């Protein structure tokens, strides 16, 4: 569904991502992991159209998307969340999500129905009328997801949505994404540091380090890979 082919990006001479290639097949859940500063969010931003790669190509459903603007990428069917949450603080939770659902809905009542359904899925429906600025950080992360989901994407990019969640909340989110993946056929690409969630969700892991992909494969294999152990998990660890 998504094919990233040798993309590179430098910021003032600093190579953030170099020659990264990976694929996200339709219906899959793929995790992009790596230490801080590995270039994960830069990868996301290139896919989402925030900036174009210096070289390389990004295909989504056999269409080149590397020259598209963020809104065009969203219209093409890719929803995203931001690592640093960006709620529409002055609007209510419901209104935040309605902004997303207006992409496919013409009327306010249609958009409201879709938004409420999404909020229910993310267990935010009880807070629908609260101003977004009053939400706690975990709830704001959930709101990010809800807003992106309301645009009804085919591929969802999740940028560290588990960070700051308690283990039980994390498991709840994992369930939500599993359910979306299974019943709605949503494809997911996630950046995540919380290994508990990565191991529970991902069928495939891509490991970035210093902007380069150093390993890829099934979770159980990747976490045993010596290169990954060295750079990311430390030299000796128990998994």
């Amino acid at each position, binding site marked *: 569904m998504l094919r990233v082919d040798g993309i590179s990006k430098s910021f003032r001479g600093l190579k953030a991502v170099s020659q990264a290639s990976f694929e996200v097949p339709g219906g899959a859940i793929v995790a992009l992991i790596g230490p801080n500063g590995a270039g994960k969010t830069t990868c996301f931003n290139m896919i*989402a159209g*925030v900036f174009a790669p210096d070289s390389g190509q990004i295909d989504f459903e056999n269409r080149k998307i590397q020259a598209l*603007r*963020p*809104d065009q990428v*969203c*219209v093409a069917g890719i*929803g*995203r969340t*931001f690592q640093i949450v*960006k*709620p*529409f*603080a*002055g*609007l209510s939770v419901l*209104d935040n999500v*309605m*902004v*997303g659902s*207006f*992409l496919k809905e*013409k009327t*306010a009542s249609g*958009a409201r129905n879709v938004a409420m359904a999404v909020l229910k899925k993310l267990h935010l429906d009880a807070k629908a009328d609260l101003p977004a600025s009053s939400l706690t950080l975990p709830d704001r992360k959930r709101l990010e997801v809800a*807003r*992106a989901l*309301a*645009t009804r994407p085919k591929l969802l990019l999740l940028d560290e949505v588990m960070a700051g969640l308690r283990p039980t909340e994390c498991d709840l989110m994992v369930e939500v994404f599993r359910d979306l993946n299974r019943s709605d056929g949503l494809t997911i690409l996630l950046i995540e540091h919380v290994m508990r969630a990565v191991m529970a969700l991902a069928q495939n892991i891509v490991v970035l380090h210093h902007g380069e992909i150093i390993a890829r494969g099934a979770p159980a294999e990747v976490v045993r890979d010596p290169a990954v152990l060295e750079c990311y998990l430390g030299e000796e660890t128990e998994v």
Partner: protein
Amino acid sequence: MRRQFVMLGILGLLLLALPWFANPYLLSVATLILYLAYTGQAWNVMMGFAGQLSLGHSLYVGVGAYASAALFVHYGIGPWAGVLMSIALCVALGAAIGFLAFRFGISGVYFALLTIAFCEFTRIGFDHLQWTGGSGGLFLKVAQRDQIDLANFRGPPAMYYYAILLLTALALLGCYYLLKSKAGYYWQAIRENEEAAQALGINTFRWKMLAVVISSAMTAVSGVFFAFYYNNLFPEQIFHISRSIEIILGPIIGGVGTLFGPILGAAVLTIVGDGITEILGALGWEIPGIKQVFYGIVMLLVIMFLPHGIWPPLARKLGLGK
């Protein structure tokens, strides 16, 4: 919800009945309030809804006023055709400014500076445009005030009062529907966080342009009203930056981004501003510029104690929504 309609209905009836019991002075104050309320509402579409700060809105008032007045003075073309010309000109101007700003990523205070710049050089341009009388001004023949000539929009003060009342009501209704529609949601999203809005599939350039176009078109109409109500136009007056500030004071005092804020703000400022001047005048104190001092004080108080304007807390007290 019902309460809102009842209160709005009572207010509407009061305003409709006003010319029967108001003296000419009161009627002119009411007309001025509604003129500022309507123009403030137009500005509010751009700043309050879409978050684009214009500090040069008198550009659209002035161009709208001059276009219709010049057509009337030179060719005898009435304001009904003139208003179309005014709207077309103002929309073209607004679109040009919006295109320049949004295409090249000028936002925030720099966008505000751009709007001031356009307004200022238009003022200077009109100072030298002989076709509209230059700095000497353009004058409409003051018609007989007791006959209503709707075709040329000439008549007694009450006619102007009803015209601006109708405009204000239409603007309120139009803004209500805009705010409840996709456009309203998209504008507010852009206002709150443009990057997040874009990530949700919003073509921010296009929607910001729409806000500018609607706002400038509405303000053009207020210019036409100004021309035919006051009958004289001077570039130094109509395009002056203090006029732009006057337009935005109402919505800021009343509540930026709210539907009723511009109306309430215009009423509060005008009533108390003129009230102070009147009271001091009656006491025998003629203090030039006291109104501006008062505006400053009100502004200070609102910023300190009601940073979202008077309307939001008042609406809560009255048990109304937004």
